[in-house]
């Protein structure tokens, strides 16, 4: 049964999230290096650190007639929201803040990405950025409802919006067993929300990097970090809601949480590496005509079982 951690766990949260993000980034770089036949995975493992250093010494760009205030706000909002989304996610027995409506909190923090990505595209006053910003809003409209219904299924299963209650309800049987549709849709929408491949049209090659097209230096670093952190938060929540959080034999709870989160993260990164990009107009129709009915039926099924 998760409980709120001591006050200093709030300081630890960004560090834990950052370690996961760096690990996911390394895995991504290693997979890319292997495909490219480039120098070995060991070099790729250090690439995130070296990239961060490169962005730290890089000059910040300014574009003509940019809305600098909103543009710079975008990255900070994305990163902050990504970290805050993990506030309610338990690591073993502890979570930083166990809100009574933790699931809603998590979703609200993820929604911040809508505003942040749109602002990043808009603020630079460049055509590619703006097009990509709109792409993300379209993607958001497509993924948000299935995502919400997937969250709702878990909440109905536990009869509570508190993450601790959802974890407690999985002591005997993980939710993934009897709500697999919700779990799969949740993972899909987490990828879409963090605009990671295959849902990376907002940063696609065809729009020269899209919302990232004009970002450089520390602004780019903050924005990219925010994107990875969002993915980490999603993976962490998937473990808490569907994979029994810290539950497991032999090992301590926190280690189970770490292992499961790392595994989910690896699957997400690997899937993004294997699949070609999903275009927005195709995904929007699938989301509305397939994913929403599927998650609604899943929620109905869970409700009937609970009754």
């Amino acid at each position, binding site marked *: 049964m998760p409980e709120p951690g001591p006050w200093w766990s709030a300081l630890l949260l960004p560090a834990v999230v950052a370690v996961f993000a760096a690990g996911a980034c390394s895995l991504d770089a290693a997979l890319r290096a292997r495909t490219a036949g480039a120098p070995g995975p060991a070099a790729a493992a250090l690439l995130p650190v070296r990239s961060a250093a490169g962005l730290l010494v890089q000059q910040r760009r300014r574009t003509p007639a940019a809305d600098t205030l909103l543009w710079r706000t975008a990255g900070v909002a994305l990163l902050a929201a990504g970290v805050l989304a993990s506030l309610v996610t338990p690591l073993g027995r502890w979570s930083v803040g166990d809100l009574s409506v933790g699931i*809603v909190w998590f979703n*609200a923090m993820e929604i911040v990405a809508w*505003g942040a990505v749109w602002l990043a595209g808009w603020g630079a006053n460049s055509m590619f950025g703006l097009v990509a910003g709109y792409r993300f809003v379209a993607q958001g*409209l497509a993924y948000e409802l299935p995502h919400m219904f997937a969250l709702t299924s878990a909440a109905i299963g536990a009869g509570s919006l508190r993450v601790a209650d959802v974890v407690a309800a999985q002591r005997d049987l993980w939710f993934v067993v009897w709500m697999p549709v919700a779990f799969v849709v949740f993972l899909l929408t987490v990828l879409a929300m963090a605009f990671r491949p295959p849902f990376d049209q907002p940063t696609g090659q065809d729009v020269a990097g899209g919302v990232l097209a004009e970002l450089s230096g520390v602004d780019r670093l903050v924005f990219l970090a925010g994107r990875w952190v969002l993915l980490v938060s999603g993976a962490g929540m998937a473990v808490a809601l569907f994979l029994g959080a810290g539950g497991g034999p032999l090992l301590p709870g926190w280690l189970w949480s770490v292992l499961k989160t790392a595994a989910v993260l690896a699957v997400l990164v690997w899937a993004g590496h294997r699949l070609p990009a999903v275009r927005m107009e*195709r*995904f929007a129709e*699938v989301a509305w005509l397939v994913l929403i009915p599927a998650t609604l039926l899943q929620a109905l099924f869970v409700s009937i079982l609970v009754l």
Partner: protein
Amino acid sequence: MCPVWREIVFWLCAAGAVASGIVVFRVDSMARATFALLASFLFGAGTILLVELTYLGILVVLMMIMEMVIMVVFMVMYMMNPAGLMPMSMLHNQKGSLAIAGGTFAVLAAGVYLVDWPTSRAPRPEQPVYSLGEALMGSKMLVMIVLGLALFATIVATVVLATHRGRYDRYGDRLDRDRPDDPVRGGVGR
């Protein structure tokens, strides 16, 4: 949280909400106006969280971010100054509006301090969201049914108002086309 802190946070939120509300009508960029309005809502949500309505406070945050992002798309689409490149003034009858608004505020503020508001000693529920849920869903689900119908009517009405292509445009006059004739192909069944 100790009462002093709550007091400080409340007044910060209140000042922020009103200030960003004023900013909405003073900036010359659509994007800034919309996000100023969003800031006002977020500060407002802060005051709602202070009165222990956690669910509703976070719900307001979630809903308002979504609404404002959708709003900004329309703003940029329909306003003559999409990039904020040129300063603009969209005001008319500023003095009259200011007088009316100022007068309204004076009357309301006087009311706030003159009326003897009721207070309650009743205990606050541990989980206010349960009582909300029962009010919405309990006793024949009246509220929920009304809300649902209203939202459904809205969906139908807005689609009818906003679209200029019906199914005859998409599937042909006899509705016999296999694949709808859309400007952009969708993703199901192809």
